[in-house]
């Protein structure tokens, strides 16, 4: 995972220098790689982090990225959870800043309802197409044109 982040970061930075050297040498944010002491809070934070998108990576959540910014976001999430904030409030805070893109959890709204309707429609359609394969009553099957 690290490699693709680095590849992406290096593209963005257009850095000719060795990739690793282009990274900052600062220690990561306090809660980037440190868990919260309260296991219940940590579980809450972990569940939230798994559904937040790392903005500097390609298709990864902040929970599984080594990008420094993902670390900062993890730290931010853990600190807010520790301060007693609700996970959905933190998600909303981030969505206000980065748009819906930051959240892997699509909310039901005018733009996303087809996402939830599509599987139902598809299943109904498949059932509709196959429904006439069923025979009423207990007669033995025969050919149907």
């Amino acid at each position, binding site marked *: 995972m690290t490699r693709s982040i680095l590849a992406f970061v290096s593209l*963005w930075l257009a850095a*000719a220098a060795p990739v690793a050297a282009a990274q*900052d*040498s600062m220690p990561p944010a306090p809660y980037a790689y440190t868990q919260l002491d309260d296991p219940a809070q940590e579980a809450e934070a972990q569940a939230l982090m798994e559904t937040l998108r790392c903005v500097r990576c390609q298709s990864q959540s902040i929970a599984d990225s080594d990008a420094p910014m993902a670390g900062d976001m993890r730290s931010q999430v853990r600190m807010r959870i520790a301060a007693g904030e609700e996970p959905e409030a933190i998600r909303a805070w981030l969505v206000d800043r*980065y748009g819906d893109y930051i959240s892997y959890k699509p909310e039901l709204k005018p733009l996303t309802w087809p996402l939830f309707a599509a599987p139902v429609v598809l299943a109904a359609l498949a059932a509709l197409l196959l429904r006439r394969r069923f025979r009423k009553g207990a007669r033995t099957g*025969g050919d149907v044109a």
Partner: protein
Amino acid sequence: MSAPTPGRRSRWTIWLPLALFIGFVALVAYGLMAPGERDVRSAMVGNPLPQFTLPAGVEGTPGLSRADFTKGEPRLLNIFASWCVPCAVEAPQLDTLAAQGVPIDGVAIRDRSEDIAQFLDRNGNPYRAIGKDDVSAVQLGIGSSGVPETFVIDGEGIIRYQHMGPIMERDIAQIMSEWRKAKEPL
């Protein structure tokens, strides 16, 4: 047996897969032709800058807080870091903007004071104030997704414009015009 006639079966459902397929092709063809933006833009443009107070990044230049952005004059907020190569690339353009009278404040991301001082020695110091943001709190707060990035903040502390990536020669005119526009309140 309720045997449907063959004629009844040549219905619209037979053509449904083709219709779905055409929809799919139209969608991905659009995706191929208009490749989406890979950058994640801030959703904070048009909103007030959040509260923050950052300690000074280097000795001799003051630190930065939200109060500095509500003094009636539009400013640039530049997100940078000494370890970021494109930040050095955009430094001359920031100097040009500063020379034209644009006030610029810097937020140094995950950086050490001595590294920032060295960076400024090498690349010039266009900043009026530099705040040190060790945990990207301000960066996250304004919806910035990388370094360098530059925001135009108007005199009331409203974020008016976001420039992603280094400011190149060709971007100066755009930044200047956004900065001038920010003199008029929304």
